């Protein structure tokens, strides 16, 4: 019953208490004499070049994250099949193979379109009103892969 959880609760309380207590105790006993050198962030002994805040990182991270989301969520259709795959038999196997094949088509497109390339840099064009015409534009890649992925979901839905 609930009493079985008592040791875990006791452990959690002890852990939190220890953490809080060590911070409070060291705060009480440590000397407190700040100077600018001490307060600067540690960067291997060099002076900090700039503030870490507000730094933007490359758009390719978004692309990879977005591609991950879509391929990740496709797996949801495997779960019901995996739970009952013996009962579903050959029919289920063939259907799943077909479904994964469709996802694979989308994957090939993403690969060919350069959506998985880490090496190519994808800076936004300087002129804000220029059509982006870099040889490989992962933004477009993400969009269109999506259309393919949607198609997969859709074909699965038609059954």
């Amino acid at each position, binding site marked *: 019953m609930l009493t079985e959880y008592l040791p875990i609760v006791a452990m959690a309380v002890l852990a939190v208490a220890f953490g809080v207590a060590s911070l409070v105790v060291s705060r009480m006993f440590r000397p407190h004499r700040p100077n600018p050198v001490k307060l600067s962030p540690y960067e291997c002994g060099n002076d900090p070049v700039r503030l870490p805040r507000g730094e933007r990182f490359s758009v390719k991270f978004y692309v990879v994250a977005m591609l991950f989301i879509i391929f990740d969520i496709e797996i949801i259709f495997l779960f019901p099949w995996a739970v009952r795959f013996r009962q579903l038999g050959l029919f289920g196997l063939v259907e799943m193979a077909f479904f994964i094949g469709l996802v694979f088509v989308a994957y090939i497109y993403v690969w060919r379109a350069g959506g998985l390339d880490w090496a190519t840099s994808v800076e936004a064009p300087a002129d804000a009103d220029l059509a982006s015409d870099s040889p490989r534009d992962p933004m477009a890649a993400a969009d269109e892969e999506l259309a393919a992925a949607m198609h997969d979901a859709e074909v699965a839905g*038609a059954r």
Partner: protein
Amino acid sequence: MIDAPRVELWAILPVLMLFGGGLIALLASGFARRAAQAPFALFTLAALAAAAASALWLWNRETTTALEGMVSIDRLAVVATLALCGIGAFGAYLGFHYFERDDFRRNEFYALLLFALGGMALLVAAADLIVVFLAVEVLSLALYVMTALTFRRGPTEAAMKYFLLGAFASAFLLYGVAMSYGASATTSVQGLARALTGVGGSQPLALVGALLLVVGLGFKVSLVPFHMWTPDVYQGAPSPVTAFMSAATKVAVFVAMVRVLDVAFGSLAWDLAPAIAVLSAGSMILGSVLAIAQRDVKRMLAYSSVAQAGFILSSFVSPEREGIAAALFYLISYSAAVVGAFGVVMLISGGIREQTGFERFRGLGRRQPVLAALLSVFLLSLAGIPPTAGFVAKVLVFGAATSAGYWPLVLIGALASVAGAFFYLRVIALMAMQEPRGVDIADPSPLPRLVLAVPAVTVVVLGIVPGVIVPLLQEAGVLTW
């Protein structure tokens, strides 16, 4: 052991052709991203022809449902699929010309076009609310990306607005599906109809569900008050995409509305008709009034399409077969006119940095008599002036609404038509009467003019002898379950 369900793939052969073609085009565009686009365009046309042929093959099949009641096989779906394939062919050609002219390579356009059409072809055959939801999403997602396809500032902003409001509408659509499911323990159109006529279902819950579905679908066809995205998106999107989506989306979603409202919620028709009448009247009035204030042809056509959606919806107050046939006729004549109109606008706008303000059309009759004449025919049809198809279409939908006893709606529609005629005729007058100004940037190539003559001829022929397709549409309007 669970018995394998019957998978009658032949029943969705047109859809499979479109999606199969889309997948092949997608793969090919992955391997040939910057290659010449002519093969892609030809392949797209071939896929459309195959889809149309397989739809025709379904014409004489017995009306029934397939794939465990998920899709229906009937003449309504066949007629709508044929119309969609036709619109798709014009969309593909216009897109080809648009990108070719600026030497702008975006071969994914064809894959997206085929995916959108596949979603639409599935939507017109959908016999289950799950399929309705999925099909609407497939076509919407493809259209969002097509809107942003040139990656310029205007199109991406248009795509963002389209996406945000479209996703908002999808949530309502899905909530409507959930409510209908809660009311009847089924999502199938047929099952809903059965549950709601008997004592099994919950009527109030079903009514809430039906209204939410109308909101969700109303967004996609831009009915007032769900039209906020329309002017921005129609103006911002590349013209061929606007031509394609303004026509094809309306065909697909209105046919889905026929099934959802007339079949699934047929027993609630009495309760729903007032709501439909209000939406219809609001769209006709606001669309026509706001169009008058526009100074840009694409925006004007966008508001006009809001009004046109209202006209089409006015036939929905009559759940009879005449109402469905009238809606189909209106959809076909509207599609031909609007595809043609945006096609002409594309040729006049002078390239990917589109300029579509009224000054561009000033005195066009002198410089480009062919284009001006074509645009005039399309605008006359949209205004509903005889002898064009738009006139016959308005007579048919108003006839259907009158027979259902909604004559105030017809009165409002007639007044809105008169107001609408003003802003269409103003553009024609601008082209014919005034002196040209500025440089002529219109596209000189002859082939697009020839292609755009096809919808113009369609509009005129259907206006003079509507009898060539009306009997077919009336057959398509028979929904047996």
